């Protein structure tokens, strides 16, 4: 097996775990959003590592496409979350 592939995949696992942990434990909204994004990046790293075929062979393009989609979905969700947080803050100020 390819050491590179394995190295990146394993780091991906670690990042997923880190993200999940903070997502579950953090109380701060912002950090939860960050945590979920980090977790996503971990998953993306696993996918890209799976796609990797070494220096000579061309990688599997499908996971690349999936990750691209994933990145855009993630940014949309983040945007909505931040907008909600902003509205919430405004409401709380009114009270």
């Amino acid at each position: 097996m390819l050491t590179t592939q394995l190295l990146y995949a394993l780091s991906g696992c670690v990042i997923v775990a880190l993200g999940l942990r903070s997502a579950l434990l953090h109380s701060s909204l912002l950090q939860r959003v960050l945590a979920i994004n980090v977790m996503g990046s971990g998953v993306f790293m696993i996918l890209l590592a799976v796609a990797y075929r070494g220096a000579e062979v061309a990688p599997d393009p499908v996971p690349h496409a999936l990750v691209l989609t994933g990145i855009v979905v993630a940014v949309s969700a983040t945007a909505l979350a931040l907008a909600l947080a902003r509205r919430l803050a405004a409401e709380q100020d009114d009270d």
Partner: protein
Amino acid sequence: MNSTSLLVFDGLLLVSIVSLAWAALASIDARRSVILFMAFGLVLALAWARLRAPDVALAEAAIGAGLSGALLLAALHDHDRTAAGVGSSSTQNQTSAGLTTVIRWSVTLLCAALAVGLGWALVHVFDHPANDALARAVAENLDLSGVSNPVTAVLLNFRAYDTLLELAVLLTAVLGIFALGPARAGYQPAGLIFDGLTRWLVPVLILTAAYLLWVGAHAPGGAFQAGATLAAAGVVLRLAGRHQIGLPAARTLHIVLAAGVGMFLLVGFALLATGRAFLGYPPAWAGSLILLIETAAMLAIAATLVSAFVGGQPESVTIDNEE
């Protein structure tokens, strides 16, 4: 570079990525975590490039690090202005200290176990030769796809349906943001230097976007990278204190936002009408149809991201609330 030095490079890269992630999540100060998160994104882009995923690397740099970062910083800006904000605690029930430590540790252990489990399973997988069926299928059908960049082929032809729904997700997000109320107040008009900077920076960004869109057919790039770059132009204008930030009036803005999904549907329905499958491009037309869709998508993505950054419909633009 020989393999050992590459291995060292990989090692350093991954160590820095993991530690950046850790730092971003661990830091108490919201601002610092955001900055670290953006750094994390940029280094990730390097990693993607290293894994021979240049399209993803571009997208990560532009969207993952760039625009997410911009959004987060804007949120922080609100946070500074309002007492409670994104940084503040959202959980109502404050549990006792003893309990929290127990929870902390159990969650940590759980996540550690998950990491080990994932790693173990993946090691198992990598023992076997990789399953290349799909990759080969893509390669074989690439000529029929109308583009030579396999990633673009997957995104806009083989799995175009994913991309259609993905654009729907973007649209949903921006509509949700609009529903939450008016945009932020704009920034103060910038000083001469920055203003002058924008005068040439914006055109460059627009040109880059156009280039990325065009090149996507055969080389790394495409609608998303291009859209993000275009959005960057908008962000710059916004920071320069321009209120209109290149966004059109409500009705037109809505058209642009809907353009991505709309073009997809038009092409899809048209093909259905001609008796082909939904989004089943005729090989001869595939290239141009894809470019058409990508152009619309780029505009929609850019408009969406800028609107998200502004946090609603720009002041000058008010949703026409009929009667």
